[in-house]
């Protein structure tokens, strides 16, 4: 069993895709000789050449749009939007083109396009560079939105995404690249799309998160366990399609649920989770489903303010405690 970083996991599945499938090419800003803003594609140009590692102009719309076109014409592009913040400049191509062409064409064209991008706060990069828009994309029919939080989920989910024929937003987290985890032991390990991971099992409360917040929830569960509170920890892993079954079943068992989300609270994706839980497990709930989320502000640069704006392990533990103890 070997331990790898999240960054290595991303690199490895990209290399695998390039090695296995001639139709795969990468395209994005500074992914060439620079090696990618997060050093994921270092050495790729040397190995695969410029044909397959396309350092693109700084132009998000055409990066995605050209990916859509190439996918329509039979290739399987993996494009990179340097961070999800810049994805707003490509949102029209993602939402009005990638997500809709199949349906609008009466099913004639599929768009097997993977859009990799990077979400998250906590890197002290200020309001315009610290956002988490994956929940917005998860509201768009036609898209698949995946948010791996561990190296093995990166690998397992990416492989599953490659088997899809529709556009995927593959959302990595800026603070996770350096984190470590076990590499999957099986060579063809897959994580199914739309299957949540129950990270930990407990009877008192359900903690649910995705991306880095799944890890935060798990750490909070560790603290709570020392106090005798046993939490189910659910990592959604995929936002669309959503594994509400696992989530709802957990809540039916624990009767209490706390959703942990990094983006600002109002209108975040956690609202969807709360809604589905109370729709499907209403009679099981002993307390309202609670949410811990980012502060309702543009992300401040100043370090202590930023730390206060992001859900912390302690804040999650405190909210869980309150939910279980009723105070």
């Amino acid at each position, binding site marked *: 069993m070997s331990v790898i970083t999240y960054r290595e996991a991303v690199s490895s599945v990209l290399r695998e895709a390039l090695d296995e499938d001639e139709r795969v*090419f990468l395209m994005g800003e500074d992914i060439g000789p620079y090696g990618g803003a997060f050093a994921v594609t270092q050495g790729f140009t040397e190995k695969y050449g410029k*044909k397959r590692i*396309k350092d*693109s*102009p700084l*132009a998000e*719309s*055409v990066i*995605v*749009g*050209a*990916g*859509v*076109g*190439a*996918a*329509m*014409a*039979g*290739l399987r*592009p993996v494009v990179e939007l340097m961070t999800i913040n810049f994805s707003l400049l490509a949102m*029209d*191509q993602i939402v*009005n*083109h990638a997500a809709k*062409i*199949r*349906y*609008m*064409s*009466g*099913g*004639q*064209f*599929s768009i097997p396009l993977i859009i990799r991008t990077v979400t998250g706060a906590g890197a002290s990069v200020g309001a315009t560079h610290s956002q988490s828009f994956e929940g917005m994309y998860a509201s768009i*029919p*036609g898209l*698949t939105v995946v948010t791996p939080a561990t190296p093995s989920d990166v690998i397992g989910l990416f492989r599953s995404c490659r*088997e*899809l*024929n*529709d556009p995927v937003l593959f959302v990595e987290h800026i603070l996770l690249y350096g984190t470590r985890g076990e590499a999957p032991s099986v060579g063809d390990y897959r994580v199914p799309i*739309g299957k949540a991971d129950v990270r930990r099992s407990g009877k008192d409360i359900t903690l649910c998160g995705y991306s880095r917040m799944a890890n935060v929830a798990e750490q909070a569960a560790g603290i709570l366990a020392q106090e005798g509170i046993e939490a189910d920890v659910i990592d959604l892993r995929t936002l*669309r*399609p*959503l594994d509400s079954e696992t989530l709802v079943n957990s809540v039916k068992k624990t009767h209490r649920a706390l959703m942990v989300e990094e983006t600002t609270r109002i209108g975040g994706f956690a609202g969807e989770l709360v809604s589905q839980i109370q729709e499907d497990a209403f009679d099981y709930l002993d307390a309202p489903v609670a949410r811990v989320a980012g502060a309702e502000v543009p992300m401040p640069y100043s370090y202590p303010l930023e730390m206060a704006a992001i859900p912390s392990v302690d804040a999650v533990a405190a909210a869980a405690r309150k939910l279980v103890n009723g105070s």
Partner: protein
Amino acid sequence: MLKAADVPDLTKDDLLGFYRQMKLIREFERESERQYTRGNIKGFLHVYNGEEAIAVGAINTLREDDYIVTHYRDHGQALARGMGSKEVMAELMGKATGCSNGKGGSMHLFSSDLNFMGGYAIVGGQLCIAAGIALAVQYRGDDQVVLCFFGDGAVNEGEFHEAMNLAAIWNLPVIFFCEHNLYGMGASSKETLVMWDSLHEMAAAYGMDRYEVDGNDVLEVRDLMQRINADVRAGKGPAFVVARTYRLRGHSVADPADYRPDDEVQYWESQDPIPRFRDWLTEEGIATVEDFDEIDASVDEEVVIAAEFGESSPWPEPADLYDGVYTDRPTEGIPT
């Protein structure tokens, strides 16, 4: 203007074929307007009247395996590519037999069989997609060209710039073809583009080959496009073509177009590509009144058949609503 001798490769049949396509487009659009008035076509309807020489002149130079991408004003290109007038009309009516199964509508015609990669309704968006298709051609080492239509209004959009730049720097086999009809929706391009009167020169910013052509002269369009296709196919990289033309109707059926000066409208009516070509065919001694009558009658018949087909075709099944969102799984929330 060209002479018959300038186009020795075109037979009488070819030339009358062009005439027929142009005429078909015109009559098809007239019928769509009637159907719109009768409520059989809904939403937006952007007709192609006056611009027929572009689609017919350009598209007939393509090979079957070349690609076409266009905007929401797409009926003309679809018909010129050989899409059946029945399937197009049915699509405009939202019927299951439409070329996009009624899901796309007038602005979103598609045919994978014809490499007709779609009409797109977000102004400028399709240029990026066209660049991507061209990238796929280049990547595979093939020699197709991608022909991408858009309007002068689209030139304002950021995506125009991004797509032109990408195609230029990567030498992609795409022809960006601007149907310069002087207006966006109601805004004159004189008021939105400094270079409106030499629009093709904007491509100099990308070091791209660029051409202007009389978009109301089907043979000029064809002639130019044949040369450009050959260059692009040979790997010389992208090209930008601006065809000067005019839409003889409003932006959409809802638009009375009274913002247009009378003399401008009159001038362009005098340039109507269909009578122009008909006169040319007559003057060059290629076709007679009888030829035209025969074609016109067959066009009228085709259009009637298309309309009847559309009207008598079934609506999509209710269950179709949820069909086709994903290739690999059912959509969410299908009512049970």
